[in-house]
């Protein structure tokens, strides 16, 4: 088979070439974000720009000091060990760096699980702990979700961002995944495959096992949230009348939401169930 081209005058030319070479990929979604750029040079720049000292306190906020290193790490452009060493060398105390290294640990953990389970990464690792059997979840992703037209503003915004940028903040991924699996009762596999089409860091281990964690097939209980949690971590973006944004289904205490979503079971309620864990 002939070699593919390596000489391009600029990025536009490269994109045009790839659009022509991979028409099915362009048919899935034709958007290419201006950033991030692939490659080691861009990866090192991003690593140097990381605000590691602010990470622990702000990482749960959509505008927090997360690093956006994930696509580089996913393709091994930066190894997890290199990123860890850099973080240890560029922070002062254990308190300052522990949370960040713990998050790198999640990736290492998921990779190790993947080595053990192989293609079973697509199978439920355990039963759902939602009171529903796997057969009660829809197989396919509903069209309104794929179109980003669910009528729930913060959900639709994240779907658009996924398509346009190929990146979502961890919290947004959790909200979107829980929306698909618990509010719409769709099997996590449909959502996971959809994410993998678009995430620049799309990785069967981190992605599928995180979906399973949200779904409760790889954790002890389902992840869910309420509007307050969204408002808290999105700044003032969605303040105002929740109904006007199609948010009714998210309004209420965790207990109220859990009764609505999982009427057959009795969950015990923390003030903020597991949101902090990730």
């Amino acid at each position, binding site marked *: 088979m002939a070699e593919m081209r390596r000489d391009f005058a600029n990025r536009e030319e490269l994109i045009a070439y790839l659009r022509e070479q*991979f028409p099915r990929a362009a048919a899935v979604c034709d958007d290419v974000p201006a950033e991030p750029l692939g490659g080691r040079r861009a990866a090192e720049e991003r690593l140097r720009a990381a605000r590691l000292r602010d990470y622990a306190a702000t990482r749960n906020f959509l505008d927090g000091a997360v690093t956006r290193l994930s696509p580089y790490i996913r393709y091994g452009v930066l190894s*997890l060990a290199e990123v860890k060493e850099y973080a240890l060398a560029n922070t002062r105390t254990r308190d300052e760096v522990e949370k960040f290294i713990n998050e790198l640990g999640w990736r290492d953990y998921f990779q190790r699980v993947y080595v053990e389970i192989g293609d079973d990464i697509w199978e439920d690792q355990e039963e759902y702990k939602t009171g529903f059997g796997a057969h009660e979840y829809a197989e396919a992703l509903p069209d309104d979700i794929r179109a980003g037209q669910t009528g729930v503003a913060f959900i639709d915004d994240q779907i658009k961002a996924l398509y346009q940028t190929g990146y979502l903040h961890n919290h947004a991924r959790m909200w979107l995944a829980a929306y698909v699996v618990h509010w719409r009762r769709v099997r996590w596999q449909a959502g996971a495959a959809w994410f993998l089409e678009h*995430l620049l860091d799309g990785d069967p281990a981190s992605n599928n096992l995180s979906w399973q964690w949200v779904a409760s097939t790889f954790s002890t209980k389902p992840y869910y949230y309420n509007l307050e949690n969204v408002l808290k971590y999105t700044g003032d973006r969605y303040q105002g009348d929740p109904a006007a944004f199609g948010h009714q289904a998210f309004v209420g205490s965790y207990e109220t939401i859990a009764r609505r979503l999982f009427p057959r079971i009795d969950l015990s309620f923390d003030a903020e169930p597991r949101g902090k864990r990730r």
Partner: protein
Amino acid sequence: MMTGTVIWLHADNLNPHCAALQAAPGAPAVFVWDEELLDEWKISLKRIVFIYECLLELPVSIRRGDVAAEVAAFAQAHSAQRILTMASPSPRHRLICQRIMQQMPKGSRLEVLRDPPFVETNARLDLKRFSRYWSAVKYDALRGKK
């Protein structure tokens, strides 16, 4: 006699400092877009662009098609009986390694190299839940940082 070495790079390790590129500096290297996998995963254009940009910073010949057949043909075109590649957690990587060897002449070698791991541990890790894994590796991961 065939004695040369070639490097097969794949998308789980596009690090210009990876062990394979360091073990055989200047050896011909190849990356193959996996046509079968592209069919299966339906990844969108932005993902392809990102990977391609990573490849453009590497000394690598870029191809597409049946990965095993392309890698074996590449090795033979360079009279190489030794192929270096980087480890991957993917079961597909193992399968492709087997298929490559089926297509290489007798006596050929395929070596799977590893970069330094996130944590050095000899313990068998309990992977049932993250918390168990983390309590086993945390000390080493933070390397005594106070």
